[in-house]
């Protein structure tokens, strides 16, 4: 199954400000299992790219929070997931047709169930 995972940054990823519970190793693991990965945040796209580059992760996309519909259009997949720590993340995710997981749920790596299929 092709899975796309969008990560909010601050309060969600471990390299966010504040740091979140989802580790970069979790991201690497999902990517190694074939997931399309990237970030969707109110942090500027240039800052998002820098964060990924510094982590040594080759990301597939970065986008502002409102950009999930465009990401869906650009990357065909069977499952679209966004994980974040704010109601706004949930709002944008659901409006774009993404499954939404809160950051603490994301730390349980719910996407593995689809990637292992």
């Amino acid at each position, binding site marked *: 199954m092709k899975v796309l995972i969008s990560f909010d940054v*601050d309060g969600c990823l471990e390299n966010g400000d*504040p740091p979140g519970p989802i580790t970069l190793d979790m991201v690497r693991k999902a990517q190694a299992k074939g997931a399309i990965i990237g970030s969707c945040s109110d942090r500027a796209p*240039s800052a998002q790219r820098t964060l990924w580059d510094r982590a040594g992760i080759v990301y597939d996309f970065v986008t*502002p929070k409102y950009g999930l519909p465009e990401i869906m259009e650009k990357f065909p997949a069977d499952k679209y997931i966004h994980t974040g720590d704010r109601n706004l993340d949930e709002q944008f995710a659901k409006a774009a047709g993404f499954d939404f997981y809160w950051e603490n749920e994301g730390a349980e790596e719910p996407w593995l169930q689809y990637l292992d299929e």
Partner: protein
Amino acid sequence: MASTEWFQADRYRAKEGLGVWEHKGKAAIAGLGNSPTTRRWDGDLSTSLGAWTMLAAQRALDDAGITKDEIDGVISCPQGMGDEWGAERGYFPAPYDSEDGLSGVSAHWLVKNMGLENVKTTYHAPGCMSTALVAGAEVVGSGEAKTILVVRGTGNMPGRYHQTPGDTVGGPQQWTNPWGWQLIPQIAFGFDQYCRKYGSNHDRMAPFILNQRRNGSMFPEGFYYQNRPDDLNLTVDDYLASRWICKPMNMNDCDLPIQTAGAFLITTGERARQMKKKPVYILNHVQQRGVVRSSVETLAETEEFSTSIANKCFEGSGLTAAEVDVFNPYDGFTLFTQSFLEGFGWHGVKHGEAHDFYGDDIRVEGSHPFSSSGGNNGNGRTRWWGFYDSVQQLRGEAGDRQVQVKAETAIAGAFTPQVSDWLVLGTSPD
């Protein structure tokens, strides 16, 4: 000292026609202090607003080279800018057993917990550090106190910022809140009116925003410098792609709420000359409280307010627009900053010309170093960076941010054209 009175309303210089300030040059800023910064408070009492206000105050004392025994007055803006911690989360052992010290810091809290035993004068000033600073200028200028600390903590609690959960509203807001008319749409509307009148557009704000971030990258006390340097590399594409908050206001037009505390030490000009740092004299202080004729502030009213601020600043200090070297008006919503620039006519900018000016060389190295602090857009929301930078510029201590033009006078102020307080500063008391 169990409580503190509000500074008397009739002591603010809020009207035009008052003439030169009778205490011009008698008070000076002799110490600056700022705590570290962070996005939100994490519940650790060592980084609470109270602890950080004490730290900022101590740093201001150290900057001036004096001890706390010399402090005989404290003026605080006692409310933070964020939300309350709230009893439901549970308070802490004293002195953190109430909101005082957590979501705001009163003058008497600071006096008690810092052991400022010689303080005889305390006041509170509402809303902004800027209001507390103008009160401080008057208190020292008039001789009511000799050496005072002016403090504020910002406050930003975990969770979302300034939600309004209630489903009822009273008072004047009953006419505006039900249809969402609050400060943000007002500012966005005002900017839209500006663009319509003068034939400009939101994209033309980009050079100003990027320059604010660039100045922030040279401000070690600032939030982004300390915590998110990547955000200071904002590009034009980033700015234009930023999420709309209330079109034509986007996220990067808004300053970021942060947790920090700041302190300014004001003393007499005579005493300041004996302290460690070069004195920065207060040449005038000004208050603006514009009255809007309806529930919507018109562009004409905004321009009228800014012009009045400038008139009062110039009249009370004796300076002219051409004599203002450093200019740090508030930028918490960047979309009203052009009103200050044009109202003051700084560097000859007239109504409708601000966006052309932004496209010129406004870098600190250039000939028009506008908002050399980087403001709150470049450093996070405090509303005091402009004052802080102005003092550093006049001391010649702004580091990489030091303007290359003459820096002998400065004007800084916050908050909006309608509601704001301002200081006129100089390296000479005359």
